[in-house]
């Protein structure tokens, strides 16, 4: 079987006496994975380990089978750090070109790649301006451009949407989706969970140095049996439906607001199964069914035992 694009095997990382990551095992093979967690949860450490910026204290991190600490692995990874400490006297084009030279391309190829990546992030026409005059969004695009230089199979993007206006954000989201469609693996951290949810349904939740959960939001929500599910259902005959729903073992409460019900159920999996049966059996006409707490924000809140605020 082919090596995963990114593999963490029982990885722990200590900074002095502080345990930043604790026995993390993670495997990425493709697609977009959102990395979410509270501040100090270990997201940045995980990304730095993936890009060979730091070395694991215990365990092993590999990129397509190559040790992430080895320089050869960095040809396979594009990294967009959250810091934007550039040499401000350089133009965007010069910076990306300098990074292309560092990648080991001959001059002609480095030039071609510089132009291709600048075009890809929509910075070709503004690339001759000095970095010190760039807005936050333009700096972000330059950082993404340098990460794309080697056309790497794995992209690690730390807060890539930070500071980008809504139009630019949509363009970058489209770009990330297109990259994922090419078979690349993207590991994206973001504090903006709503934006992350637009990008991917697959997340890794980091809490207190551990991977608390990995998978699609729906799957993770299903596993949270201890937390009742809240679902809004718009349907005809709300009062009758409420009575039928309360008769189900899974349902713990129902609020009625005209043609709309807010149902609280013990287990999402059982509830959806039983509700489906009920709809078929009783011929209920459902206009809308909206889970209220299976968003990344709510799930994170449940997992972290707080508000889920990152």
């Amino acid at each position, binding site marked *: 079987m082919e090596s995963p694009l990114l593999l963490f095997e029982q990885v722990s990382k200590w*900074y002095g006496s502080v345990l930043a990551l604790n026995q993390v095992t993670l495997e990425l093979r493709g697609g977009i994975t959102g990395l979410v967690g509270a501040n100090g949860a270990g997201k*940045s450490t995980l990304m*730095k380990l993936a*890009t*060979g*910026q*730091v*070395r694991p204290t215990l365990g092993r991190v590999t990129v397509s089978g190559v040790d992430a600490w080895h*320089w*050869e692995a*960095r*040809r396979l*990874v*594009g*990294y967009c*750090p959250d*810091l934007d*400490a*550039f*040499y401000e*006297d*350089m133009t965007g084009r*010069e910076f990306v070109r*300098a*990074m292309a*030279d*560092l*990648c*080991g*391309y*001959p001059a002609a*190829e480095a030039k071609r*790649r510089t132009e*291709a*990546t600048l*075009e*890809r*992030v*929509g910075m070709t026409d503004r690339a001759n301006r000095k970095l010190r005059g760039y807005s936050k969004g333009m700096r972000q695009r330059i950082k993404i451009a*340098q*990460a794309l230089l*080697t*056309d790497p199979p794995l992209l690690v993007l730390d807060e890539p949407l930070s500071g980008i206006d809504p139009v*630019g954000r949509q*363009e970058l989201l*489209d*770009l990330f*989706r*297109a990259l994922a469609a*090419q078979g690349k693996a993207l590991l994206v951290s973001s504090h903006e969970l709503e934006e992350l949810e637009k990008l991917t349904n697959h997340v890794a939740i980091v809490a207190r140095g551990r991977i608390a959960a990995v998978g699609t939001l729906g799957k993770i929500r299903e596993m949270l049996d201890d937390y009742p599910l809240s679902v809004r259902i718009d349907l005809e005959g709300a009062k009758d439906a409420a009575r039928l729903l309360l008769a189900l073992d899974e349902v713990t409460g129902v609020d009625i607001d005209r043609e709309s019900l807010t149902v609280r159920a013990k287990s999402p999996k059982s509830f959806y199964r039983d509700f489906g049966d009920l709809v078929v059996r009783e011929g209920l006409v459902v206009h809308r069914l909206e889970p209220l707490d299976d968003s990344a924000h709510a799930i994170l809140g449940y997992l972290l035992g707080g508000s889920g605020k990152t």
Partner: protein
Amino acid sequence: MPTVSDSLLHYRPWRGEFRGPIHGSLAMARLSLLLLARRKLFWGLYALALMIFFFFFYGQYLVVWIQEQTSQQTVQFGGIPVKVGDLTKFLDRLNLNGSAHTFGNFIWFEGYIVMIVMALAGSVLVGNDFAHGSLPFYLAKPIGRRHYLFGKFLALGLFLNLVTTVPALVLFLQAGLLYDWQSYYFDHLREFAGILGYGLALTLTLGTLLLATAVWVRRTVPLIMVWTGMFVLARLLASMLVEGAKLDARWKLIDLWNDLYLVGLWCLGASRESIRGDQPEFWEAAAACGVVIVLSLLYLRKRIQAVEVIS
């Protein structure tokens, strides 16, 4: 922004051979020199270094011209007739005659500029990367930590040699043209090799020391203070101890620039007796430089192994 599919179509895969990380070091050196060249202060300092070079260049020419043409002629100086040759006696201290001491003295005087340039270069090229957090960009590229530092070392070495070794070689060429060039070049091969040796000693010692101090203190002002301590205060202290307190000449070994000067004169083939003042042995100066190199390398090795980008 063009549509994503359009952009992706232009992004064809590359099938060529990647060059190794050593080329990454060269790219890092090129980038570092570019960054230095963007600072007006460096051009100002380089201009000062060139002034010292031109002083030696025209000084050599002047001395030969006076010796050949006008040394016996007299000029009126304050109403007193003085031989032209006597007016230029002060130049004798500099040995502007294409000898080992010409090149040794030239590099000695360039040292004042070199010290300032190196302190600033260290903070710009290395300190800033650590202090401002730009390291993740470089270390996320396919080069190792040692390649990163080697690239910085190359840039520092090239700049150092542009101020010292290269102009000294030009002075050597000029000296040959001023005298009988065939015999000069053949008879002074030792000086030629000595200039290269002196340059190598400077590059290795100052390059590794600067990298180590820049990695250690990182910021410009502390770096300049440490550098000043090493090259100004240590020199004053050495002078006070040896010439003031009449202690053993080995105390001069704490003056690293003087140690390098002695190593340079050793390379250039100058006799120890021809050096003014109490000085330690050549080999002792070389050993002191060697100790500095080894300690700097050991410190860098420790940091390379430990360096992790933690923000």
